Each structure stands twice: as C-alpha cells, then as structure tokens.
C-alpha cells in the first residue's frame, strides 16, 4: 500500500486549470473544423487564462496563512498566488495580441495549447517548495517556450532563435540541476525550509550549489551575464510570444529567485545578497549599454528587459521586507509595459510586413494616435517617469536598497536610468519627430486591419501602467501581504 499524500486541489487549481485547457486545445486541433479552429482555440485559451487568473485571486484571498501542500511539494501562500494572478493576466493579454498574428493556420490550436501549457508550468513553478518541483516547473514551461519561439517556421530567424534559446536554456537548466544536486548532497534535504533548517553555513559545496542555483534562475530571468540568449530569442520569436516571454518568464523567474534565496538559504544571506547585487549591476550596465546601439525595436526592448531584470534584482539584493514589496509591485507595471510595448511593435509589424526598426517607426505616432500614445506611455514607464507605475517601481527598489544601507546600488540604478533615457526617448523620437512620408514606407497589404483585440490588449496594459501610479497604495498593500509569506 502506497501512502498517498493529501492533495490540496484548490492550491493546484491555477496550474491544473491551464494544463486542462491545454489538453482540450490539443483536441480542438484535431476535432474542430479548420475554419472555426482559430476563434475557438483563441477563445478557449483566453478563457483558460482568465479562469486561472480568477482562481489565483481566490487562492490569494484564502491563503492568508502560508502553508505547504501536497506533501511539502508546493507552497500555498499569497506570494505565489499574486505571481499567478500576474502570470495568468499576462497570458490573457498575450492571447489578445496573438489573435491576428500571421501564422500557419493548420497549427494554430497547437500554438495556443503550448501557450497555456507554458502558463501552467509557470504557475506551478512559482509554487515550488522543493528542489524537485522547482526543476520540474522550470523544465515544464521552458520546453513549451522553446517550441513557441521556433513555432513560426515561415518567419526568418524564428527557428534559429528557438535553437539558440533551447541550447542556452538547457545549459541554464543543467546548471540549476547541478546546483540542486550539490545542495541536496550537502544537506540531505530537498524542501526549501528543511535545507534552511539543516543550516550548513559556509560549506564550500553548499555555496557552490547556491551559486549554481542562482545562475540557473538568472538564465531564466535574463540577467547579465546569463542573458546571452535574450536578444536573439526575443528578436526571432513571433512578437506575441516575445511579449509573453518578456513579462511572464521574468515574473516567474524573479519571484522564485526571491523565494528560494530567502526560504532555503537564509543563513547565507550576506553571500547571496552581494552576488545578486553584482548580477544586478552587471544587468544594468550590459542591458543599457547594449540597448544604446540597437536599431531593431524588438532587440532594443530585449536589452531593456535585461536592464529591468537588474532593477528588480536590486529589490532582491536588498533582502528586506521593503525589497520583497518592491519586487512584487515593480512586476505589475513592468508586465503591463512590456506586453504593451511588444503589442504595439506587433501592430506595426503586421502593418509593414517587415521587422520593426527605429527607422520604420517613423510617423507611427501620428498615423495610429492611440497606439502611439500608448507606446509613449510604455517607454516613459520603462524609463521610470512619473504618471506611470514604472516610477514607483524604481522608487521602491531604490528605497529598499537605501534601507539595506547600499546607497551605491541607488547610484548604479540612477546612472542606468540616465543611460536608458537615450534609447527610450529614441523610440518616442522615432515615432513622432519624423514623417513616414520621407521614408516612403509602403504598408504591406493595403490599409492596416483594425485590430480590436490587439487594441483591447494595449488598452488593458495602458490602464494598468497608468493606474498603478495613482493606485500605489492598494497595490503595495497587496504586495505587502504577499511578501509576508516570505521569512524576512
């Protein structure tokens, strides 16, 4: 007789719901007639993400006490539930952006199946409470993303991007696995809190394991120097996939990083705090300097996402309650800005039929006023200007660093922001200061489609970006309740 653990189905519901939708979508791929497949699949995926989002909200509401569930395999707490809300929300917006993407129709249901599977994997990943589920979740969503990156074989570079992502991502996963093995070897424990309880201090093997775990997670968060895949994968992947990756992967990876470090390695806090601060500074430097010279907008935004990983890692390096709050808050406007910016890029791409560069963005702001103003708001938010949540995001991570006593992290962040002004405002310049007529850009297929779904997605992102500036307090309260689940 095997002892079955008690399964807390409710705690698992956000990821189970999504994976269920993913299975249904695979059936849709073969059972639904071809002409109805796309709307049905997209609707199911959207409904799946929205449903998962609703379940996560419920889970957040009913998990005031942080507990482990399913035989200590997963956490049921507000930290993961809030992350799941953000993940599912990002997924829903990604579906809206995807709908009109020019893709081979025969595999459209599989596309949505993979998207929901990736979402399910991330939702599971953020709940992981031991090294086994951590690795399982990581591989689950990574494999789905590898395929998604390469799914559009008609798009030049998509396959190449997928391959690069696969190889580098596999190295990252292997690093994480190796690190986990070392940690397990030292402590004899798999679950995070027992690793902490085993408390082996500065054992060389444990420290090496910790370093490799950090590196493995930093690969996924695309923090420098583990970001090498990011520009290529972001540029090559279909734009809606890039949008989803840039927001959701970052949410999952950073939330888990904070959780693993504080829960499993509280004794080595001085060590990982310094290491994360180093990675943060490297990401800020590399991301911003790399972005300065980019002409392709997707690639530029990829480097910008590296620099944002740096900003959010400042919150982790601070290793205090304010830092956890800062990270969670920062993720909300960041996810919206990132999704929104890539959505606008997708709109321009479909209009022109070529990759979007700073050159061919010319005049876009005047031709499509709503999308133009939205893009304007998104890049200003990434720059950290007031009237967008990006401002308070940066403000909070700086405040966290200050509380920790590391004013030099603030200085690094401020310098990085100064550099970033050049390329973020460069996008505004490209959209508004030049006429498209001078460049004689010809739209690919006549007048552009009125993409209601994409516009709806952009508007949602706009509302979140601006709303998070005015409604700081409620969001911070939510983030604080989430952060209470961490042992800080």
């Amino acid at each position, binding site marked *: 007789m095997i002892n079955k653990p008690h399964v807390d189905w409710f705690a698992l519901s956000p990821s189970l719901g999504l994976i269920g939708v993913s299975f249904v979508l695979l059936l849709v791929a073969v059972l639904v007639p071809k002409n109805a497949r796309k709307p049905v699949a997209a609707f199911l995926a959207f409904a799946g993400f929205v449903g998962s989002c609703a379940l996560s909200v419920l889970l957040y509401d009913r998990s005031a006490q942080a507990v482990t569930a399913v035989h200590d395999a997963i956490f049921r707490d507000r930290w993961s539930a809030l992350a799941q809300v953000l993940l599912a929300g990002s997924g829903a917006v990604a579906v809206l952006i995807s709908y009109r993407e020019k893709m081979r129709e025969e595999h459209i249901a599989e596309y949505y199946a993979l998207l929901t599977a990736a979402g399910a994997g991330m939702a599971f990943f953020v709940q992981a409470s031991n090294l086994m589920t951590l690795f399982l979740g990581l591989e689950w969503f990574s494999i789905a993303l590898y395929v998604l990156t390469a799914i559009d074989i008609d798009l030049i570079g998509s396959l190449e991007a997928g391959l690069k992502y696969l190889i580098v991502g596999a190295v990252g996963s292997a690093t994480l696995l190796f690190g986990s093995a070392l940690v397990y070897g030292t402590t004899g424990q798999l679950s995070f809190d027992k690793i902490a309880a085993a408390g082996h201090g500065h054992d060389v093997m444990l420290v090496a394991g910790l370093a490799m775990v950090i590196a493995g997670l930093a690969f996924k968060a695309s923090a420098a120097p583990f970001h090498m895949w990011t520009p290529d994968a972001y540029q090559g992947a279909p734009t809606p996939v890039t949008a989803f990756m840039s927001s959701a992967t970052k949410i999952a990876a950073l939330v888990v990083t904070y959780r693993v470090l504080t829960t499993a390695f509280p004794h080595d806090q001085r060590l990982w705090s310094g290491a994360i601060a180093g990675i943060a500074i490297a990401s800020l430097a590399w991301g911003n300097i790399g972005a300065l010279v980019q002409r392709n907008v997707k690639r530029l935004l990829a480097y910008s996402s590296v620099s944002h990983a740096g900003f959010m890692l400042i919150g982790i390096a601070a290793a205090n309650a304010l830092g956890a709050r800062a990270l969670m808050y920062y993720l909300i406007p960041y996810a919206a800005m990132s999704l929104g910016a890539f959505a606008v890029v997708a709109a321009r791409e479909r209009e022109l039929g070529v990759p979007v560069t700073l050159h061919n963005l010319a005049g876009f702001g005047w031709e499509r006023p709503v999308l133009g103003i939205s893009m304007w708001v998104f890049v200003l938010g990434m720059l950290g200007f007031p009237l967008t949540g990006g401002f308070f995001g940066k*403000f909070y991570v700086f405040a966290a660093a200050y509380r920790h006593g590391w004013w030099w992290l603030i200085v690094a962040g401020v310098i990085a922001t100064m550099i970033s002004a050049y390329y973020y*405002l460069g996008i505004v310049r490209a959209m*508004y200061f030049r006429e498209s007529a001078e460049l004689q850009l010809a739209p690919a297929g006549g007048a552009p489609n009125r993409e209601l779904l994409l516009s709806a997605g952009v508007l949602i992102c706009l509302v979140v970006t601006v709303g998070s500036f005015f409604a700081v*307090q409620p969001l911070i309260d939510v983030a604080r309740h989430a952060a209470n689940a961490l042992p800080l």
Partner: protein
Amino acid sequence: MHWLTTILIFLPVAGALVVGALPLPRYWVGSLASLISLVEVGVWITTATKFDFGSASLQFSQRRSWVSDLNISYHVGQYAFSVWLVGVTTVVMAACVIYGWWVGRERARAYFSLMLLLTGAVVGVFTAQDLLLFYAFFEAMLIPLYILIGVWGGAERLRATLTFVIYTVVGSLLMLASIVAYGLQQGTFDLTKIGPSNSTWLFLGFVAAFAIKSPLFPLHGWLPATYRESPPEVSAVLSGIVSKAGLYGLLRIAIPKFPEVVADWRVVLLVLASISLVYGSLLAWRAPDFRGVVMYSSLAQSGLIVLGLLANNDLGLDGAVLQMVNHALMSSALFLLAGMVERRTSTGEFALLGGMARGRPALATVMMTAGIISLAVPLSTSFAGEFLILAGAFQQHWAWAVIGAGAILLAAMYMLRAISAVLHQDVGPAVPDSALDLRGGELAVVVPLVLCLIGLSAYPNLISGHAFGGNRAITQVITPGGGYLTPTIDHAAQRANLTTCTKSGNQGSCQTVLVSAPSGTTTWTRYAP
C-alpha cells in the same frame, strides 16, 4: 475653498484631455485652448484676491494620503511667493497658447493639449508640498516640452531635444536619488514636516537638478540649441516659466532644508551665480542673433536671482521673488517678439536685420518698452528687483554687489545693441518692405505682458512686499521658530551665531545671538536661540 490649488493644477490638465480628444478643426481647437488658458488666469485671480498676504502660512492647502507606508501624500498649497509664481505662469502660458493659436500650429490637437499639460505641470511644481509630488510634476514638465520642441521645432530640433533631455534627465535623477535618501531618513516626504538635513551629498543632488533647470553656469550647455530650435512660444515658456521651477526649487527646498550645508557652500554658489551673471551678460552682448541675446540674458538673470536667494536676508529674498516674476514676463515677451520678427524676416541674425522701426510703430514701441524695462532702467520693476537683490547681496559682502552692479551695466549694453540692430540702423537685407507691423493678434499677446511689467513698475511692492507674508521673511516659511542661521559656524568650539530677524511694518530688526550646542550633541539647535 481649499480646492482652489487643485483646480489650478488640474483645470489645464482636464482641458488638455478635452482638447486632445475632441475632433475639432484647427481653429476651434486653438480657440478652445485659449479659452481654457484664460479661464485658468481667472481662477488664479480668484485665488490671489482670496489669499491672505498678511499671513505667512500655507494657504489653500489640501492633503490626501497617497502611499501611506512611506508617508507620501498628495499635498498641495500655496505660500505668498507661490501665488506670484503661479500667477505669472498662468499669464505667460495664456499668452503663449494664444500666440500658438494665432500662428496656427500644425497638428493643433496635439500641440494645444501638450501646452495645457505643461501649464498644469508647472503650476504643480510651484504648489506641491510633498517631495514626491514635486518630483512628479518636475518630471512631468519634461514630457510635453520634449515633444513640443521635437515636433514643432526648427531644423536642428533632434540634436536640440537630445541635449536638452540628457541634461534635464541627469539632473532630475540626481534629485530623485536625493529625494529617496532624504525622505527615508526623515520618515516623511512632506515638505512642511520634513526636518533639515546636513548631508552635503543630498544637497548637491538637489542643487544639480535646480542649477540645470535654472540654468546656472557651468550647467547651461543645453541652452543654445534648445532656445534657438524651439518654436518661439516654447522658448518663451522655457526661459520665462520652466527655468523658474529650478529657482523655486532652490528657494523652497535646497536653501531652507539644508541650512548648514548652504552655509558651507554659500560662497561657491555665489561665485557660480556671479559667473553666470557676468559670463551670460558678455555672451548676450556678443550674440549674433536676437534669440541669442534673450537666452544669454536669461542665464545672466538667473545668476542674479540666485545671488538674491543666497544673500540670506529679507532684501535679497524679496528681490529674488520680484525678479523671478519680472524676468518671466520680460523674457517671454522678448522671445515672442523674436518669433514675430522671425516670421517677417525668416531670420533672427542681426547682420541681416535692421531698420524695422520705420513704418512699424507698434513693433518699435512694444519692443522698445520691453527692452528698456529688461535692462533695468530706473523706475522700472526690474530695477526695483535688481536693486533689492544687490542691496541684499551687499549685506553678505560688498564684492557681490559690485559684480552685480557691473553686470547691470552690461545689460544695458547688450539690450540696447539688440534693439538697435533690429529696429534702427540701415534696413537689413532680410527685411522686406512688405513686412507688416504687429497685427492685432500679436499685439493682443504681447501687450498684456508689457502692461503687466508697466503695472509692476508703478508698484513693485505688490510682489516684493507680499512675497513672504506677515512681518517675517522666509524664516517663517522655513520654520515656525522664526530664525535662520548665519554663515558663521564654529564647528570646533561648537558655537554658532544665530541671527533672528523680525519685521514690523517696513522696519526690520535683526538680533545676533551666540549659542553653544550642548556638549556631546552634533546637531545644532538651528532655529530657536
């Protein structure tokens, strides 16, 4: 009643949204925006008439908690000097919006909604009583300015916006770092509650932002390209209004919140101000074009105003506030006139201009009046302002007053040279005979500004006597204690000379007291001897 400040900030913002959203033809967009900006002036007049200038306290204030865990609030309100700065903002912005309407700017909906947004942001800067809110408005000014220059500017506008933005963003981010550290140190971001700090680094962060905005030598590198490439009404706003945000920051934050550091750095800042004054005047004297003269004279004027702000006495502070208002009116009038000349001749180069007075009496009269007032001819309001500033600086040390007086001489040289190069001498090659005199619309824009100057010339005490309320100078604004620190601190002996000044009627009296800090403490009792 206490809603008035909030209305002043958000009326133009709401107007901007309406103007931007309504699909009206260009002419109607312009008239709607002009109407909104005039209503804004009306709201300000209401504020000023209801304001109690006898009281030194914060009025029309409103406070709502915004982020409670860091003690950030939406806190706005006005001191007497804020009222004057807000007033001049609304007046100048109205003139510039109407000018934009008259000129018929392309892409009217975007243009006018950005101008109105800018109005709201500047008023916000002058009335915010929370550091975070102040920063938000300070940064919000940049967004419309960036687009206004980049889209409607001259041929070299891309380079101009780049320089402008890099300077400004660097400055304001240094300020942000200071704000984070200062606010968390003190546990609040509320300007009326936050205590003084003695950190040099924080002080320098603030000063960098304000010195770039003002601008102050050597941080004026963004000036030439930006002022030359902007549309004239945007240059007018930049030099008239936006630069005052930097000076206001010095007056409201940098000087009162860091009394000890200011004392240490006073000479450095006074030297920089003097260099701005003299160097700016010399550059203006040698400038080859009309806009060059006005923009470098702005550099000189902000040097002069900083001289007054740092004089550390009632005379200097009263004069500085008066001169801020004067300069806002003068330089915006002159920039608008420069734009009007450029519309007729398509150049501002002195070599190509000349002889425009003949047959154009309105242009000659208006330009002459504005020019004469701005060179601080006796009996003019700018003479009153500069005199107060110099008298204040004299009390600090006679050398500052000598430098200032010398620079006023230079002002006469550059301004008369500019006027004569445009209006008199031989008719320049770029001046067509068909060039018209000022039209009704142009007069409607620029004459009210000049009339304000003439009115103030008759009664400058309206501002200089009512800038700080009650019978006390800025000390009341800084602290309820009613005193401020003189520069002489003897750190070794832990003693300081504290000067308390009071004013009753027009008579002021100061009393200097030697105080010692209790042994073992490092913080000085700064305000109450």
